[in-house]
């Protein structure tokens, strides 16, 4: 009996260990399901050149006919690509930005599960390393590639990249030909017009009259009546870890919305703001369906448009009307807007500094008129203010997750403003000339990160109380924001570079994800930290929402 009992105990122990191991396996399964492998298991195939070379870094895209959702994956060093599991149905299969290759479009393609697709064979347009300026190719060039390819001094190009970089793509400039007098009229309006609407004209421009004349002269030289499109120098295609990503794009119901910010709610929806129209919207990424909301009418003679949009912890949506000078609050359940007139001195149709931050207690923070202010969200009345000694205000506004720190890129000068609300300390460090810090976010260690229009990623190290700057790997690209994820990695759109960056502060290494569309006016982003790896969202100025899902 005793022996038997011992054996039974051993058996029970063995069963317990096995059970524990099995439970551990099943418990581990959801974690495993969160890694990048969940983004595989769909249609797959190989991309080759017509002479049989395996092609790496080609963007293979499937467009669903029913929803118009576009999914893009990247071929690896063996030319192999694999989509995530996609809804069964009819699709268009194509190569996004074929560039040196002829376009490839195949439709209809029926997809059902892990379909093995025919090899994609691509024919070269040219064997030259420079691309000839055929219209199809010119349209695929990023702003960076335009600037690499056009003649001109670095100084002339710098005039453009630090002053003309946030409102539109560079192709919107370079596709044109004007004489010098006409360039002068256009540049005057751009340089002297307030904000992106350009309705109110200021006598004093964004830079000096001498620089304005130099920019006009250069544009008339490279984009004058007789200027030829250049042969294009191109940036390299993605390789290795840069191909380990899935990018999904969603159409919006309207054109010319000048879409600006995104923010996610607790139900997995993505909200977007529109910069120069009355509509905001809510995308359901599962279906691609968008519900539009019409912001209450603004006053006569005032341009409608929402700049900042933010979904709070209760799924209430907040937005700023940068031209009408209101804050609004939307309860999605009742679909009721509350409009809060914002007490600013600026004239309507000029920017009111419309980037704000909500703290955990529901107060709005902003930096304007030489002070950082904590204000009551429903009235705009100040609760607490911190005086700035150096800078007039900030372009962006961010709060640390615990509500202790405020941060923003200084405006209009080069620097950063950080406030410690616990100690009332105010930090106003300078950054390098024309670095242009703008919007950003605090990382888990409370360091403030900011995207710089001069193509510089800027960190205010909270422990060291000093600035660190990191230059983008892609030339002529600009930053608008820098977002920190739960792991401390930093993300942001490389405007005009056609790429989205990921920066690891521990290794100081960059990963650049090539975007399916080349112009990349990707301003504010939102990071979904509930997935592993994280999921990054932005809305392109040209009117589609983009989801970036790294595989690792």
């Amino acid at each position, binding site marked *: 009996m005793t022996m038997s009992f011992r054996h039974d105990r051993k058996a029970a122990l063995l069963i317990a260990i096995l059970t524990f191991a099995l439970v551990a396996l099943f418990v581990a399964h959801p974690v495993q399901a969160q890694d990048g492998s969940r983004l595989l298991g769909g249609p797959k195939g190989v991309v080759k050149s017509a002479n049989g070379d395996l092609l790496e870094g080609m963007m293979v*895209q499937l*467009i669903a006919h029913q*929803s*118009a*959702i576009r999914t893009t994956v990247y071929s690896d060093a063996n030319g192999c690509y694999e989509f995530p599991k996609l809804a069964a149905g009819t699709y268009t299969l*194509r190569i996004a*930005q*074929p560039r040196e290759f*002829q*376009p490839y*479009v*195949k*439709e209809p393609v029926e997809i059902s599960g892990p379909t093995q697709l025919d090899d994609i064979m691509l*024919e070269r*347009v*040219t*064997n*030259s390393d*420079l691309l*000839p*300026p*055929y*219209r*199809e190719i*010119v*349209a*695929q060039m990023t702003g960076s590639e335009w600037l690499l390819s056009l003649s001109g001094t670095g100084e002339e190009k710098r005039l453009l990249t630090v002053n003309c970089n946030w409102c539109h793509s560079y*192709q919107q400039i370079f596709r044109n030909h004007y004489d010098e*007098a*006409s*360039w002068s*009229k*256009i540049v005057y309006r751009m340089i002297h*017009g307030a904000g992106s*609407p*350009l*309705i109110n004209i200021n006598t004093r421009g964004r830079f000096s009259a001498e620089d304005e004349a130099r920019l006009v002269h250069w544009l008339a030289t490279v984009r*004058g*009546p007789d200027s030829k499109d250049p*042969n294009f120098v191109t940036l390299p295609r993605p390789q290795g870890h840069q191909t380990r990503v899935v990018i999904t794009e*969603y*159409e*919006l119901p*309207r*054109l*010319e*919305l000048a879409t600006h910010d995104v923010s996610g709610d607790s139900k997995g929806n993505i909200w977007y703001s529109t910069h120069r*129209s*009355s*509509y905001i919207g809510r995308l359901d990424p599962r*279906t*691609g*369906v968008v519900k539009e909301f019409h912001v209450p*009418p603004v006053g006569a*003679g005032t341009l409608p448009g929402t700049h900042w949009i933010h979904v709070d912890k209760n799924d209430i949506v907040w937005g700023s009307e940068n031209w009408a000078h209101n804050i609004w609050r939307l309860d999605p359940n009742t679909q009721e807007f509350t409009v809060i007139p914002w007490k600013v001195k600026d004239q309507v149709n000029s920017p009111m500094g419309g980037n704000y931050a909500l703290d955990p207690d529901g107060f709005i923070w902003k930096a304007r008129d030489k002070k950082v202010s904590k204000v009551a969200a429903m009235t705009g009345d100040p609760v607490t203010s911190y005086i700035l000694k150096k800078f007039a205000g900030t372009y962006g506004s961010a709060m640390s997750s615990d509500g202790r720190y405020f941060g923003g890129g200084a405006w209009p000068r080069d620097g950063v403003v950080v406030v410690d609300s616990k100690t009332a300390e105010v930090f106003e460090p300078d950054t390098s000339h024309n670095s242009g810090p703008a919007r950003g976010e605090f990382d888990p260690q409370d360091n403030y990160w900011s995207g710089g229009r001069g193509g510089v990623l800027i960190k205010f190290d909270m422990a060291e109380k000093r600035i660190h700057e990191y230059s983008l790997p892609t030339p002529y690209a600009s930053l608008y924001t820098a977002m920190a994820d739960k792991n401390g990695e930093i993300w942001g759109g490389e405007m005009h570079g056609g790429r989205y960056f990921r920066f690891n502060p521990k290794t100081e290494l960059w990963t650049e994800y090539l975007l399916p*569309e*080349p*112009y990349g006016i990707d301003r504010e982003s939102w990071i979904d930290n509930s997935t592993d790896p994280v999921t990054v969202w932005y809305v392109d100025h*040209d*009117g589609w929402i983009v989801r970036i899902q790294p595989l690792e």
Partner: protein
Amino acid sequence: MSAKRGRRKVAGAIFAAALAAGSWISRPALAQQQGIGQESKEPAKDYDQRALEIYEFKKAAQSGPDRGREIFYYKCWFCHNEFTKDIPKLEGLYQRPALINGQSVNDDTVKNQIRNGSANMAAYRYTLSESDLNDLVSFVRDHCCWDSDSPPPNPRYRAR
């Protein structure tokens, strides 16, 4: 949407036929004109690349007043809008007796105004083609002007 899909199919068919033939129609290579000295083959157009639609002002339509509206938004609206002061409004332009320069209002005089500009207006003669101008004036004549409260629908959006 059907027009766009048909357009893509035509482009795809042309491309496939050219590949099947194993050779492309011989034509002066642009690359040679540009001095590269390499043979090149002009690519077919794939309008599913949004950038090409953007570049050619063809997001809303291939031609006609809807395309004209898009050109208007990018080339005219930033001055001729409902909010600016001291810049001529264009609503009802064709119902007016004359342009500011005194000429009668018709497609030819309006196109000339756009081509040549004025003391305060850029000249678009080198940047807008004749088909661009035709689409633009068809919008200005019959559908003007832009409504910031109701931007045009996106033909690509079809999730329901």
